[in-house]
């Protein structure tokens, strides 16, 4: 056990190029997916929090439920969509990073939307009367609330990032775990462990934990700073 750990640390300290390629891909896919999910999920969540329309409660329940969507299920669905025999096959996106980004975006959007809805709804409770008296339109409400809740929303964004980088089921299925091309930290860990090659698995695991810790530290620090600055 100790030797494995030492080998793992050696890989990290020497900045083994294999490890770097894998880590870089994980970040690229994660950041792209979270960016897209934010652009879709934040306005969606804010809209559901503020607007009144028939079926609003059903949509809220749906978004909350979709947060727990199993990643392999999303993986299979996207796989069938992107396969050459599938409806979107002509784009030839299967087994490539864009396919992984698509699958992860689908996974993260409900998370971002549901968190946003919760955060914005809490603020809306305080602000609703005042905004109504100023005759704000729906767009005015959504825009102002999103901006005012920006720090809490960044925390939601970091949560989305954590979910994206820890995910393995969907990216394995739609990416194919191709070496140097669609192999992320999580799929590499799965593969190397299956092969019984543990040092690389552990090295990547260390990086993954470090990333998750860093994200959470950033979230914590941001909230602290925002509290002090803006109250």
């Amino acid at each position: 056990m100790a030797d494995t750990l030492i080998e793992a640390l050696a890989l990290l300290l020497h900045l083994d190029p294999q490890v770097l390629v894998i880590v870089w891909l994980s970040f690229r896919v994660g950041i792209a997916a979270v960016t897209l999910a934010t652009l879709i999920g934040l306005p969606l969540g804010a809209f559901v929090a503020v607007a009144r329309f028939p079926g609003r409660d059903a949509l809220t329940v749906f978004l909350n439920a979709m947060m727990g969507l199993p990643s392999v299920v999303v993986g299979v669905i996207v796989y069938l969509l992107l396969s050459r025999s599938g409806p979107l096959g002509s784009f030839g996106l299967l087994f490539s990073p864009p396919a992984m980004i698509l699958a992860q975006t689908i996974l993260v959007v409900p998370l971002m939307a549901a968190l946003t809805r919760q955060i914005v709804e809490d603020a809306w409770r305080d602000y609703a009367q005042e905004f109504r008296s100023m005759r704000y339109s729906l767009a005015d409400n959504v825009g102002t609330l999103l901006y005012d809740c920006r720090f809490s929303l960044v925390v939601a964004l970091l949560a989305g990032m954590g979910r994206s980088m820890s995910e393995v089921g969907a990216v394995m299925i739609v990416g194919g775990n191709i070496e140097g091309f669609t192999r992320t930290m999580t799929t590499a860990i799965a593969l190397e462990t299956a092969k019984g090659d543990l040092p690389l698995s552990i090295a990547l695991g260390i990086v993954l934990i470090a990333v998750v810790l860093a994200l959470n530290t950033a979230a914590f620090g941001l909230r602290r700073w925002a509290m002090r600055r803006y109250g």
Partner: protein
Amino acid sequence: MANLVRRLILTLPLLLLGAVAYAEESIVLASTTSTDQSGLFGFMLPKFEAKTGIKVKVVALGTGQALDTGRRGDADVLLVHDRPAEDKFVAEGFGVERRDVMYNDFIVVGPKADPARLKQTKDVVEGFKRLAAGTAPFVSRGDKSGTNAAELRFWKDAGIDPKGWSGYKEAGSGMGPTLNMSAAMGAYTLADRGTWLSFKNRQDLEIVLEGDKRLFNPYGVMLVNPAKHPHVKSAAGMKFIEWITSPEGQAVIADYKINGEQLFFPGAKP
């Protein structure tokens, strides 16, 4: 400032997606996890790439899944080891230009103490009969792979329905995890020699039965039929098939060794 930030946020996904567009030529090779995990591709493909400039992207699945990927047109070339299934694939019109590439053999591995006494026979069917008569467990891959298909043929030849035997454990996973499980449980399993040689977590396992002609495991390569899937990169795919069956490619296969032991034997007909 806010405008700049906004613009950056909107272009970021495009940058990240675009950075991914590769200018070089490439093909998708669907193969089996055992072949991939043996390290053969890592050894062989850089040489092909250097010679032709074509990048080979390997998607490693079980044989059944690899063929299915070819059926859907999601791969350009297939390299698998299940002759009956390959022939069926070609007969159904999904594959063309099927050629023999190489072979290795299967082995039965089990606990050093060998409670089922497989070490004493060189007959694989006899070995399977002894397994069913004993209590030591057997782990099956259970994943429609070439290895799994061979294993099921042996049970059939032995006249045994493995699902009726209490020691039969179906893992539903690749060779590596199956070996992991066998090592942990002190169970027997059927493995391909390639994966076994590169498997690092052996614990108490060792080879208990080998050499039977029926353990012969041939590999075939073929192109996904461009008539069924016009987008298939047939030119580049054929270059790969030609190369791997050429004397040069065959020599590379023979050269691949782990700890001085050769894993695969050239099998292409000249």
